[in-house]
């Protein structure tokens, strides 16, 4: 509120007034006049600033528009520049704000490509403030704009207020539209290709390619009779044509927590969604049928295979929404979460943390002393002091005073003065002992500060949820309850506290064993309703689950047994060398400088490669094909498989 400049001015002028008005006015009245005039001016500036700030409260409007291709868009497309235009204007009733600084809060992981998201100046009714800058989202997902930070000050810089104009808006970043090259068929295998979107199935059906000849059965349409063959054999022969069935591809997208980890826009899930979207668009361009199943550790979301335009757009939206899902890291440290949540609240909910709406009563500072039952026994010495020592001591002090006033012996003073001081100042000594025990910051140290922060956050959470006062107390005392809400609060604002990837036993915390069962069930369900040999593309991170692959392997075998094809695309960490390179490194024979860090890194890399090899071997043996995200071109590979299905024959 009061800047340091304002504080020093008030202190200086106040000191001069304190000196001038009582005494200095006798000899130099101009000093008092100067001090009083300056104090009145300061008071006026304060009132004017408060009036402007109060008049503006709730009367500042923020509008946000996102433009791509020169037009306002409800969604964005990845890898295309999007222009963000923010207008901050004053509504009627607000006074002019002569000096404000505004800054639009960027979505997590985004950088300004051009323009600026900050501005300084004045805002009037006639002259709103406009920010315009360009973003370049590189991956599908969700962009969440929280709002605009506005700092206002008076023209002299004596007063200051910061408000956050919340305008939470989420925009989907849809996957990049596939270009001509990616939607083209990968390999042209024969000249006579069937029409797009279908493939020939060597079963009798209503296609155009001759499949077989058989004897006439009464009821066969006359146009199906093969007259030449009938003439040669002297019996009626009927032609059978091959069946034309659509090529179907079902994508399985892993949206488990392990896939969501990483910088915004640079997660495995975002990459998988990008690949899946490219496959879906390329397949839709050739009128193939594509379906999508999104799964995580608990549930699946199924979009049945279809080829309509609406279905394609819904798939893109699903990919974008899935890529924007925040990881549920499940942090269980209430103090750490409280630190992050409080920082976020200070930044985006400053008005809800002010003491006038969110108090911090003094009781909070002594309550921690009563955290343990044993400390309740402290009441005993307190009562003892009040009723015995204090009461008796008062009587004794009378005696002491009598002896001091009229000492019988000078040595009386050496005894009774210290004794009297100790008795009278006993609470002070106890305070000293407590400081010694609990730290120089006070009786209760960090615990009391944490409790005050916890209470303020609890009131914010309960207020946002329209909850009851009991919820505030529960947030204060129930760590699990608080942790769950704080995690939700942070996730809703796309803020991720540091994630511990490994538990105390060194085990990866985001393995997600349960997702394999969910995936296997989904795959078996798809196989159950499949019509023909289909392509199942699984985009999942299962490398850490080498020992738990059984459910998936069974499902893959079931799919392959029905003549379907299964393609597994595995994400690969950016900082992990590919297996081939590691082998080449080992064979190059060069001596390396060995260090502890290098040894640990080598061990971790070797362990990851070993797991990857195990998973790949198991899946290949079950009949699936396995490739990495960053290996070759997974989209082209999937399209190539579909092309094989289109032109291939089923095995009998």
């Amino acid at each position, binding site marked *: 509120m009061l800047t340091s400049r304002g504080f*020093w*001015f008030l202190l*200086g002028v106040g000191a001069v007034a304190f000196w001038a008005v*009582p005494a200095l*006015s*006798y000899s*130099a009245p*101009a*000093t008092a*006049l*100067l001090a*009083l*005039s300056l104090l*009145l001016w300061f008071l*006026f500036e304060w009132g004017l600033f*408060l009036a402007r700030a*109060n008049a503006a*409260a709730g009367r500042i409007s923020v509008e946000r528009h996102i433009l791509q291709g020169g037009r306002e868009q409800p969604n964005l497309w990845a890898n295309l520049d999007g222009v963000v235009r923010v207008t901050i204007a004053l509504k009627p009733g607000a006074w002019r704000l002569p*000096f404000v*600084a505004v800054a639009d809060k960027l979505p997590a992981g985004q950088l300004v*490509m051009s323009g*600026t998201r900050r501005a*300084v*100046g004045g805002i009037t009714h006639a002259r709103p403030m406009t920010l315009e*800058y360009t973003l370049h989202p590189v991956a599908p997902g969700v962009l969440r704009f929280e709002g605009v930070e506005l*700092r206002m000050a008076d023209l*002299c*810089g004596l007063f*200051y207020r910061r408000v956050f104009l919340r305008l939470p808006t989420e925009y989907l970043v849809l996957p990049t539209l596939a270009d001509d090259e990616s939607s083209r068929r990968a390999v042209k295998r024969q000249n006579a290709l069937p029409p797009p979107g279908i493939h020939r199935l060597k079963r009798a059906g209503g296609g155009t390619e001759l499949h077989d000849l058989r004897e006439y059965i009464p009821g066969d349409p006359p146009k199906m009779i093969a007259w030449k063959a009938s003439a040669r054999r002297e019996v009626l022969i009927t032609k059978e044509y091959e069946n034309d069935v659509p090529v179907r591809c079902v994508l399985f997208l892993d949206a488990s927590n392990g896939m969501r980890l990483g910088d915004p826009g640079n997660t495995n899930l975002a*990459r998988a969604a*990008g*690949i899946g979207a490219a496959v879906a668009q390329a397949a839709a361009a050739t009128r193939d049928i594509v379906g999508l199943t999104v799964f995580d550790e608990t549930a699946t979301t199924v979009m049945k295979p279809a080829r309509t335009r609406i279905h394609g757009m819904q798939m893109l939206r699903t990919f974008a929404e899935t890529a924007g899902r925040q990881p549920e890291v499940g942090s269980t440290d209430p103090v750490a979460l409280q630190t992050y949540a409080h920082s976020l609240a200070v930044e985006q909910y400053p*008005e809800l943390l002010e003491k006038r*709406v*969110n108090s911090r*009563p003094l009781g909070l500072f002594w309550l921690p002393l009563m955290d*343990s039952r*044993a*400390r309740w*026994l402290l009441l*005993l010495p307190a009562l*003892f002091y009040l009723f015995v020592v204090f009461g008796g001591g008062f009587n*004794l002090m009378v005696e002491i005073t009598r002896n001091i006033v009229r000492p*019988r012996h000078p040595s009386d003073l050496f005894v*009774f003065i210290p004794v009297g001081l*100790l*008795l009278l100042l*006993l609470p002070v000594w106890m305070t000293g*002992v407590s400081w010694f*025990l609990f730290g120089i910051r006070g009786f209760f140290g960090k615990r009391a500060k944490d409790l005050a922060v916890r209470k303020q956050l609890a*009131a914010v959470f309960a207020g946002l949820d*329209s909850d009851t*006062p009991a919820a*505030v*107390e529960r947030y204060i*005392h129930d*760590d699990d309850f608080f942790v769950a809400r704080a995690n939700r609060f942070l996730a809703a604002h796309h803020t991720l506290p540091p994630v511990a990837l490994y538990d105390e036993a060194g085990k990866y915390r985001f393995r997600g064993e349960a997702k394999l069962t969910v995936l296997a069930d989904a795959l078996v369900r798809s196989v159950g309703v499949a019509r023909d040999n289909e392509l199942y593309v699984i985009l999942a991170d299962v490398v850490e689950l080498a020992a738990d692959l059984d459910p998936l392997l069974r499902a893959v075998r079931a799919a392959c047994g029905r003549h379907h094809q299964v393609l597994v695309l595995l994400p690969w960490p950016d900082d992990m060398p590919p297996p081939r390179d590691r082998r080449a490194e080992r064979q190059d024979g060069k001596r390396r400088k060995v260090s502890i860090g290098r040894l640990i890194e080598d061990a971790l890399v070797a362990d990851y490669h070993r797991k990857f090899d195990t998973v790949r071997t198991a899946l290949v043996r079950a009949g699936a094909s396995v490739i990495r995200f960053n290996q070759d*071109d*997974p989209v*082209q590979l999937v399209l190539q498989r579909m092309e094989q299905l289109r032109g291939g024959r089923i095995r009998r």
Partner: protein
Amino acid sequence: MSSAPASPSPAVEPKMPSDFPFLDVVRNPAARTYALVAAGGLLATATLLYLFYFSMFGAAAVLVIGVCGILFRWAAAPVLFVVVSAYSLRFPLGLPFVDGGVSGISLIPGSHFALADLLFVAAALVHLIGLYRYLSAAHAGLPFEAPPPFVKPGAKPTVRPAEPIADPELWKLFARAAAFVVAGQVLWLLVTELKLDFRRDFPITVHDSTWSRYGPGVWMLNWLSRSLLTVLAFAVLGGLLAFVMWYWRLAGMSRDEGRVATLDTRWAGLRRDVNRPEAWRGWVKKKAAGKLPKTGFGTYFLVFGVPVLMLLFAVVVIGCAGGFR
């Protein structure tokens, strides 16, 4: 398709207007204008100090401080200007406890609306307002958002943008300076002409005679009345302003603020009732999870050591006292 197309590198976002080299002051219309206003006020203040208050030391000192404030954007200059001006008025020669021959009782009746005082205070106000606005345009208009430990080294605060200043802004500055000179004089008139006398029914009265106001000794005895009246005036003005603004802000609360404020009030009322079950629930959950804090030496000392010490202490005191009976 697997490898994402190379994304363009982000541009360096234009910086907020901040502290700039001194030579750029002349190119910044806002800073230039207010530098001239502050310089004018400074010159007038120094001239008046020298001509009317016979303080060559004061004139030179405020000139040096003011010029340093303008040239080097010295943030402490305004406060030092006020302090040095006050000192120079009391001790024109610059030596402590050595009057310059201008003090005297005769000055006091003339202190109300004396031309020299009016001009001096007006010049000082113009200089201070101009200097503060100049600092906002050339040094720091807004403080850093982060607390000092978290401000990046070399970071510069935001300043007012370099835009021409509208004429009304300057005229308002001069009008305000004049208005507050008069207001200060009126307030000074009130606190010197009125007297606090708590023996009366209404404790504020008017001085009955000039001699009782300004007579030797009486003036000095009235310092308490003046001080209390000044404090009372500012308390009333400030309190009234704060109350109006507080209510205004209360009336303009947002929905979220109102909800949290209501919740907080209800929580404060119900805390004693709801604290107990929730505290026990939390304690039981912690105990079940084995997360209860361990009892340390401090607790044992507080629970057992302190009572024992107090008991011993009481025994010693009682014993000593008994020994003296």
